[in-house]
């Protein structure tokens, strides 16, 4: 699994959930993790299924079904310059958008483990929210390989 190439965008100017998911999805496309239609599917899923993708305070993890244009498993990190309301009663507003590409056979479980280990660590989340150094963000996720 290649985490070296995790795309990171800090202080994106999106002001709506749709735009934030689209901007985050763009990182997946650039990284060749997903086709453009996967990004539209993430937005549709958000509209259909609601704001549950805001899985923790300030953190949204949009994703779509793997058959909606996933290329390979992975994720990206998008930080919003201005917190955006996704309509979640408890976990709004969103500061971090982590778009996820999974796989149909759950082989991305390792990736989820690594991801949750970073996101469960308050110090790591604090770094994600405050640093201006993209290398530091990449390093947070890369450190998990050990």
């Amino acid at each position, binding site marked *: 699994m290649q985490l070296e190439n995790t795309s990171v965008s800090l202080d994106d100017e999106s002001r709506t959930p749709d735009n934030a998911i689209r901007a985050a999805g763009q990182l997946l496309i650039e990284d060749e993790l997903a086709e453009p239609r996967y990004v539209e599917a993430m937005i549709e899923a958000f509209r259909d299924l609601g704001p549950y993708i805001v899985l923790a305070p300030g953190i949204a*993890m949009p994703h779509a*079904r793997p058959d909606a244009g996933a290329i390979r498993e992975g994720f990206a990190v998008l930080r919003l310059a201005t917190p955006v309301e996704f309509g979640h*009663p*408890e976990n709004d507003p969103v500061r971090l958008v982590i778009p996820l590409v*999974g796989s149909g056979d*759950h082989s991305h479980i390792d990736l989820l483990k690594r991801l949750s280990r970073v996101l469960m660590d308050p110090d790591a989340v604090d770094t994600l929210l405050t640093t201006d150094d993209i290398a530091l963000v990449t390093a947070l996720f890369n450190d998990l390989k050990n």
Partner: protein
Amino acid sequence: MKIITTCGMGVGTSLMLLMELQAIGAKHGITIDGEALDISSIHGQNCDVIFGSNEIVKSLNDITVPVVGIKNILDKTEIEAKLLEFIRSTATGRE
């Protein structure tokens, strides 16, 4: 015990939740047989309890199995407290 975790598509939060529940179970010596499923596949599944984020499980009002909602999928303390509470409640119910 058998736990089903659920989310919109069965590839994201439900899997994260299941991993967390299994880790907590292991810590307390409880074997958790689990499955992560999307919300549309949940009806008619055989299990002891369903876990999911609050926002997802609030649509499950027509289900006979106990349902536990989680506010913060990344909060081990909340997940652990709710799992142990569920286990205690079933133990009491059987006495």
